[in-house]
Structures are given as C-alpha cells and as structure tokens.
C-alpha cells in the first residue's frame, strides 16, 4: 500500500525562525507536488518537483526531492505570519499527472 507520510503534522513557529517539513513516501516516483491550503479555502499549488535532486524556491519556501531516499523537504526560512497555513505533499503514483496520493498535511502556525 502506498503511504505518504508528513511530519510534523502540527508546527508552531516563531517569526524569524527556520524549520523543515518532511514528506516520506513508500513507492517509486519522481513526481512530487507541494500544495498550500489556507483555512476554509481550497488548495493552491506551490511546487512541482519532477526529478531526483530537483530544488525549487519561492520566497521563504524551498522544496527539494530525493527520489532515492523517497523524501521531499519543504524548508521555511525566517518564517512570517503569512506563511501560516496547512501544507500538503502529494506523490504522483502513475507518473502521468493523474492520481495523486496526499500526505495528511502539516498545519503551520507562525506567531510573533
């Protein structure tokens, strides 16, 4: 059974601090997605990682993919309140942009 595990599931951070969210998955895949969801809202695409060693950065967020370790990380640099949201990773199990298997999400709360 394919599993996508995120940790931590809840993260409370102070503004200005750095932290990393981890996404482990149990099957071979070289396509991984990160999404953000604000409370009461839908999911917004953040990053698409398409190969081993891929690294993408947008503002204070940086995502990377290690397909050999079956691990993706989402690194937060100098957190600000606006980053408070739930972050999901999702693995493309058919390598064709079709069905995604999502992790349970990491709820991030950034406070001053």
């Amino acid at each position, binding site marked *: 059974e394919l599993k996508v595990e995120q940790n931590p599931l809840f993260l409370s951070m102070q503004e200005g601090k750095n932290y990393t969210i981890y996404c482990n998955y149990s099957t071979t895949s070289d396509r991984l997605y990160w999404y953000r969801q604000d409370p009461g809202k839908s*999911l917004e695409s953040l990053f698409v990682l398409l190969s081993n060693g891929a690294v993408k950065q947008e503002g204070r967020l940086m995502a990377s993919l290690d397909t050999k370790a079956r691990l993706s990380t989402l690194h937060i640099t100098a957190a600000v309140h606006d980053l408070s949201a739930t972050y999901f990773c*999702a693995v493309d199990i058919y390598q064709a942009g*079709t*069905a995604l298997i999502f*992790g*349970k999400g990491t709820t991030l709360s950034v406070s001053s």
Partner: protein
Amino acid sequence: DVKVTQSSRYLVKRTGEKVFLECVQDMDHENMFWYRQDPGLGLRLIYFSYDVKMKEKGDIPEGYSVSREKKERFSLILESASTNQTSMYLCASSSIKNIQYFGAGTRLSVL
C-alpha cells in the same frame, strides 16, 4: 487563469437523499478528480476521469459514483447519502503530466 468551479459551497442534505456535486473546468483539461477532505485524514481520492465517459476508482469509491459526459464537467453522485459522507469535497483538474488545479470545495452536511 485556470478555473475549476464547483456548483455549491455548502450543501445540507437528508440521509437517503440522492446528491449531485457538479464540477466544471474551463481549461480543456483531460483529467478530472474528486477528493474528500476530512480532519486528520487529509485528502483521499474518490474517483478520477482521464477522458470523457472514462472513470477510475480511487481509494474510497464506495457509496459514490461519477459521470463525465462532457470534457469540462465531472459530477460526483451520492446515490443514498449517509451521515458518514459529511465532508468537504474537492474537485480538481489537470492536463496530462501537469499539476492539479482545485476548486473552492463543497462542504456537505448529511443530517
């Protein structure tokens, strides 16, 4: 901008009712998806479709069916709604090998 529109933001239905959730996308995407989202369980795939009149079961298809008569429209049907189907339902679409774009979601309550 890609737009995925779900027909209702909130729905309240009675147990045993037949419920239709509609989703329309305007980007000519081949693939469309229905997920449900529950606290602590994340998103779980119910059904997806990669072409008109084609459908594939996801992880939790029991109690649901789908219809895709036109490329832009994908409907989720609850044949006889039950209280354990109270949830947030999210529709998404994508082109081949591309990211999925999500609708705003429908929060369904079954009483």
